C-alpha cells in the first residue's frame, strides 16, 4: 500500500481497515508533506509526541528543515497510521516565533542575552540560595514532553546533586493516577497489557476514556475491530456523547464525580451473579472479602440514583463484562481528574482481577497516559517515585540507588514521598521555595485556579527559570527564559502507555542558539559543581546515548528493565516494549503472564495508601501481611465530591481535550490546519440546560465559579444535563494581552478548584460547580473541525 495524503482534520480517524479477532491490524501509511515526496532529502526515525499513543513515524527533511512526517508501517503501535496532531503538528518546529536566544529580566522586561549570561544568572542565584537557604529552597517542575534521558539527568540533578524532594512533572496532571492505580493494585507501576490485546479482545470497557479524541490512532484500531467481523462489545462510561460513546453497546452517561459508585455496582453484579474467576481470585489476589463487603452495599438501584443513569443500563453493562471471555478495560482523565480518582481507577483493576482477565492475550486493564513521555518521568524518578520504580520508603532501595549514583544515601531525600506539583507551588506561595525551574510546560494555563498560579509565579521573591521553545504565558512571567530545542532537533527515547520504547533521532538543527534540555541540565550541573562521593562529576554522561546507557543501568532488576535495549536496537524497525533484558531479549508483550505481581515487600514500588484519605501504609504493617506476589483487591466506598452544585452555581463543570489540540496549544495552534479546526474556546451545554438559560448555539456566555470567570461560545450537544464542558487548551499568548485575561478570560482553569486526589495528588479538574449566563447573541460557529467530532 502506498503512503497517502488525506485530510485528517475532516476525517479524523481515516479510512476503515476492518479486521477480525486474532487477525493482524492491516497497515495504512499516513503521510503529510510540505514538498513532493521525491524532493525529500532524508527520512529520520522518530515517534509522535502529541499524544500518549506513541505512533512510530519518520521525519522528512528538506534543506535542513522539517518538511513533513510519514507513519512507520513496521511500528507495532500504529502500523503506519498517524492522527491529526501527528500529521500536522510538526509545523510548530518551523514557526517564526520560536525562541532562539536566552532572555533575562532586566528592569522588569525580558531582554535577549547570551547563554553565558543567562546560565551564569541561573547558577549564581541557585548557588547563593543553596548556601544561604539550603536545598529545600529549590523546586523543579517538568513535563510530559521531554525525553527519558533528559528526565533522568534532571532527576539526578534534583535528587542527588541538590538533594531536594521538590521535583515533579506536569505528568502529575495527566498520569499520576494511572501510576498510583497500578501501584496500589499490582505493587508497581507499568501497564500490564499490550495494544495487541485490542486485536484479540471480545469486550472493551472504556471508563472516562475519550479515546476517539485523546488517542485517535488507538481508536482507529478499536474502530477497525468494531467494524470488522466478530465485533467486540463496547461499554463506555462518560458524561459526554463522545464519538466512542456513540459506537457503544451501552453508554453510561453518569453524573460527574460518581465513578466509584458506578464501578462498585458493576463489582456488585459480578459478585452477586458469580461472574468471578474464584480460583484466580483465591490464588492470585488478597482482599476479596473486604471488597465483597463494600460492593454488596452498591446494588444497581442505589448506584443508579447516585450516578443518574438507569439501573437497567448498569445491569446490562455488568452482564456484558460478566460474559466477556477476553476483556480489555481502559481508563483515562474522566477518572483521573475526577472525584476519588485513584479509588475509582483501582476499581477498574478490580473488575479485571475478579474476572481473572490479566496477563493473557486480549485480557488487560490499561491505565492510560495523557502525554507521550509521561511514562518516562515515572520511570526516571522525575515525579512521584525514585528512579527505576524504587520505593522511597524502603531503605534498601534508596541505598541501592545511592550506590549506583555513588552518593551518600542521606543525600537523596526520602523522608517522605517526592513533593507533588501542587505542593511545590504551595511552598513557592508560602515563600520557602525561592528558585523554581519550569521545563517544557505551561502552568500559567494548565494548573487549576489560575489567578492563584499567576500570583505565585509573579512574586518578586521567587526566581523563576523557564526552558521552552516558545514564549508561553508562563515564560512571560519568568526571570530567565532558556530557548529549548524541540522534538526532531535532538535525539532521545520515550515510552508509551503499552511500554513501547521509541527512539527519536535528531533530524534538523534547532533554531538560533536553542539547545536540547539535556544540554541545558548538564550545563547547570557543571556550573553547580555536582560531584559524587569520590569527587568525580555526578552526571557521568554528555550525550543522549550515554545518558540512555546510564539510565538503563539503574533499571537493572527493576520492573522497567531497559538493560537489553540500545540505540542501535531501537533503530530500523519497530518500537520495543520493556522489560527488555536477558530473559526478554526482544522485549515483553505482556506483564504478569504467570500471575506473579511485583507486590513483595522487598520489591514493591510503594507500601500503598488508604484509598480514601491517602494515609500511607507503613513498612512494618506491609511486611506483616506481605502479599508475596499476589495482587491487591482494594475496596473504596463512594464519597461525594466536596464542591456540589448549589443554587448559586447549579452546573457541574468538566474540562477536557479537543482532538486537534495538545496541552496549551503551544505547538498545535502553530499548525495552521489544527488551529483552523478549533481556533477558540467553547462551552458544551445540554439543550435542556441551554433552554432554561435562554442560550442558543453560537451565543456568547459567561461561565463563573467561585474562583473566576470565562467567556465562551455555546455549543449544544448531547452532553448530560446539569454538566457543562469547556476545553482547557486555550490561554492568552495569542491574545492581545499576552499572559493574562485582561480582555477576555478564556482559560478553563480560571474556574477550576485547587483540590487533588489524596493518593495520586492529581488535581481534580472535573469537579467544579459553575453558573452560566448569556452575554450576547451569536451565530453558530463553523470550523473545519467541527463536524468530524460531533
Amino acid at each position, binding site marked *: 500500500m502506498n503512503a497517502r495524503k488525506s485530510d485528517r482534520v475532516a476525517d479524523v480517524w481515516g479510512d476503515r481497515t476492518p479486521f477480525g479477532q486474532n487477525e493482524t491490524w492491516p497497515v495504512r501509511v499516513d503521510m503529510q508533506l510540505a514538498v513532493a515526496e521525491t524532493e525529500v532529502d532524508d527520512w529520520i526515525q522518530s515517534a509522535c509526541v502529541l499524544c500518549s499513543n506513541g505512533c512510530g513515524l519518520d521525519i522528512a527533511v528538506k534543506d535542513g528543515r522539517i518538511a513533513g512526517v510519514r507513519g512507520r508501517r513496521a511500528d507495532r503501535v500504529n502500523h503506519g497510521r498517524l492522527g491529526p496532531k501527528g500529521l500536522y503538528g510538526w509545523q510548530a518546529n518551523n514557526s517564526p516565533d520560536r525562541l532562539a536566544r536566552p532572555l533575562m529580566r532586566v528592569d522588569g522586561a525580558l531582554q535577549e542575552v547570551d547563554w553565558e549570561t543567562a546560565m551564569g544568572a541561573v547558577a549564581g542565584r541557585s548557588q547563593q540560595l543553596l*548556601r*544561604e*537557604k*539550603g*536545598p*529545600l*529552597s529549590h523546586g523543579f517542575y517538568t513535563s510530559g514532553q521531554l525525553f527519558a534521558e533528559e528526565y533522568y539527568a534532571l532527576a539526578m540533578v534534583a535528587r542527588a546533586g541538590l*538533594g531536594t*524532594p521538590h521535583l515533579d512533572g506536569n505528568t502529575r496532571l495527566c498520569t499520576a493516577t494511572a501510576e498510583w492505580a497500578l501501584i496500589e493494585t499490582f505493587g508497581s507501576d507499568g501497564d500490564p497489557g499490550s495494544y495487541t490485546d485490542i486485536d484479540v479482545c471480545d469486550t472493551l470497557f472504556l471508563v472516562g476514556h475519550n479515546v476517539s479524541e485523546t488517542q485517535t490512532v488507538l481508536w482507529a484500531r478499536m474502530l477497525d475491530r468494531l467494524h470488522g467481523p466478530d465485533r467486540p462489545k463496547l461499554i463506555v462510561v462518560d458524561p459526554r456523547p463522545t464519538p466512542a460513546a456513540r459506537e457503544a453497546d451501552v453508554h453510561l452517561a453518569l453524573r460527574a464525580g460518581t465513578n466509584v459508585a458506578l464501578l462498585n455496582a458493576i463489582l456488585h453484579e459480578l459478585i452477586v451473579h458469580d461472574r468471578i474467576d474464584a480460583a484466580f481470585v483465591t490464588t492470585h489476589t488478597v482482599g476479596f472479602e473486604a471488597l465483597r463487603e463494600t460492593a454488596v452495599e452498591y446494588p444497581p438501584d442505589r448506584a443508579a440514583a447516585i450516578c443518574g443513569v438507569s439501573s437497567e443500563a448498569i445491569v446490562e453493562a455488568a452482564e456484558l463484562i460478566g460474559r466477556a471471555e477476553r476483556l480489555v478495560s481502559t481508563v483515562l482523565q474522566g477518572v483521573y481528574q475526577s472525584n476519588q480518582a485513584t479509588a475509582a481507577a483501582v476499581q477498574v483493576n478490580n473488575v479485571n482481577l475478579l474476572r481473572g482477565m490479566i496477563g493473557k492475550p486480549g485480557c488487560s486493564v490499561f491505565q492510560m497516559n495523557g502525554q507521550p513521555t509521561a511514562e518516562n518521568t515515572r520511570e526516571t524518578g522525575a515525579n512521584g517515585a525514585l528512579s527505576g520504580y524504587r520505593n522511597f520508603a524502603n531503605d534498601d532501595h534508596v541505598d541501592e540507588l545511592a550506590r549506583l549514583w555513588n*552518593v*551518600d544515601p542521606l*543525600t537523596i*531525600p526520602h*523522608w*517522605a*514521598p517526592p*513533593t507533588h506539583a*501542587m*505542593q511545590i507551588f*504551595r*511552598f513557592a*506561595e*508560602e*515563600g*520557602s*521555595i525561592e528558585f523554581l525551574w519550569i521545563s517544557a510546560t505551561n502552568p500559567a494555563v494548565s494548573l487549576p485556579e489560575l489567578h492563584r498560579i499567576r500570583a505565585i509565579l509573579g512574586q518578586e521573591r521567587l526566581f523563576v527559570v523557564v526552558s521552552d521553545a516558545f514564549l508561553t504565558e508562563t515564560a512571560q512571567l519568568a526571570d530567565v527564559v532558556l530557548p529549548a530545542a524541540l522534538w526532531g532537533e535532538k535525539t532521545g527515547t520515550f515510552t508509551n502507555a503499552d511500554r513501547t520504547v521509541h527512539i527519536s533521532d535528531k533530524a534538523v538543527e534547532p533554531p538560533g542558539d536553542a539547545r536540547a534540555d539535556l544540554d541545558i541540565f548538564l550545563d547547570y550541573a557543571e556550573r553547580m559543581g555536582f*560531584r*559524587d*562521593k569520590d569527587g568525580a562529576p555526578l552526571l557521568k554522561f554528555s550525550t543522549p546515548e550515554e545518558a540512555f546507557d546510564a539510565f538503563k543501568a539503574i533499571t537493572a532488576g527493576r520492573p522497567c528493565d531497559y538493560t537489553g535495549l540500545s540505540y542501535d536496537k531501537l533503530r530500523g524497525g519497530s518500537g520495543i516494549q520493556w522489560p527488555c533484558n536477558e530473559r526478554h531479549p526482544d522485549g515483553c508483550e505482556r506483564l504478569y503472564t504467570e500471575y506473579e505481581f511485583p507486590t513483595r515487600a522487598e520489591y514493591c514500588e510503594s507500601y500503598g495508601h*488508604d484509598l*480514601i*484519605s*491517602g*494515609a*500511607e*501504609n*507503613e513498612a512494618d504493617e506491609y511486611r506483616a501481611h506481605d502479599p508475596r506476589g499476589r495482587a491487591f483487591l482494594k475496596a473504596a466506598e463512594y*464519597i461525594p465530591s*466536596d464542591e456540589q452544585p448549589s443554587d448559586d452555581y447549579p452546573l457541574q463543570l468538566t474540562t477536557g481535550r479537543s482532538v486537534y489540540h495538545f496541552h496549551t496549544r503551544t505547538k498545535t495552534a502553530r499548525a495552521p490546519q489544527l488551529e483552523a479546526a478549533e481556533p477558540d474556546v467553547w462551552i458544551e451545554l445540554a439543550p435542556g440546560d441551554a433552554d432554561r438559560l435562554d442560550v442558543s448555539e453560537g451565543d456568547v456566555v459567561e461561565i463563573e465559579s467561585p474562583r473566576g470567570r470565562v467567556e465562551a461560545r455555546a455549543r449544544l450537544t448531547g452532553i448530560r444535563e446539569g454538566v457543562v464542558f469547556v476545553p482547557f487548551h486555550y490561554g492568552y499568548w495569542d491574545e492581545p494581552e499576552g499572559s493574562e485575561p485582561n480582555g477576555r478570560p478564556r482559560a478553563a482553569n480560571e474556574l477550576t478548584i*485547587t*483540590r*487533588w486526589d*489524596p493518593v495520586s495528588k492529581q488535581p481534580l479538574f472535573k469537579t467544579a460547580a459553575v453558573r452560566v449566563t448569556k452575554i450576547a447573541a451569536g451565530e453558530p460557529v463553523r470550523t473545519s473541525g467541527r463536524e468530524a467530532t460531533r
Partner: protein
Amino acid sequence: MNRLGGALRELYRAEEELADEYVKVGERLGAEHELWYGCKRFAQQCHAHAEAIRNHAARYEAELPPADDAEVGESSTAALRHKLSELLGRRPESGLVLLRSLRQLYLQAQEVSFHWLIAGQIAQATRNAELLADVDRLHRETLTQIKWLKSQAKEASPQALVAGQPLETADVR
C-alpha cells in the same frame, strides 16, 4: 452512671474534642488545601463516631452531652479564620503553624485511640457483640486518621524546620 458508662463518655468527649480541633485547624490552615479537605472529612468522621457511641451509651447508663455537628468552613468564626489563613499562608512561618496544629491533632487522635482500646476491652468483658463490631470498625478509622496525620507531618516538617537556612552538615555528599 456506672463505671463502664464513664469510659464510653470519655471516648465520646475525646471524639467530639477531636472533631472540634479538626474544624479549628482546617479553618486556620485554609491555604493548606490537602489539610483543609482532610480535616473536613475527619471532623465528619469523628461526629459519626460520637453518634455511634451515643447509641451504645444508654446500655451502660451514660448520659452524654448534646451532639455537636460543627463542620470545617461552617463555624461562627470560619470567615475570620479563613481570612487569617490567607494572609498567613504567604509567610514562611505558616509551616510552623501547620506543624503545631498537626501535633495537637496527633495527640488528641492518640487519646481517642486509647479510649477505643478501652471500649474494646469493655465490649469483650461484657460480651457485647454489637459494641465490639463497632469498636473494631471505628477504631480502625481512628488509626487511619493517625497514619494520615503522620504522613502529613513527615512531609511538612523538613520544609517547616529546615528550609530557609544553610544545611549545616559537614559534608552533604
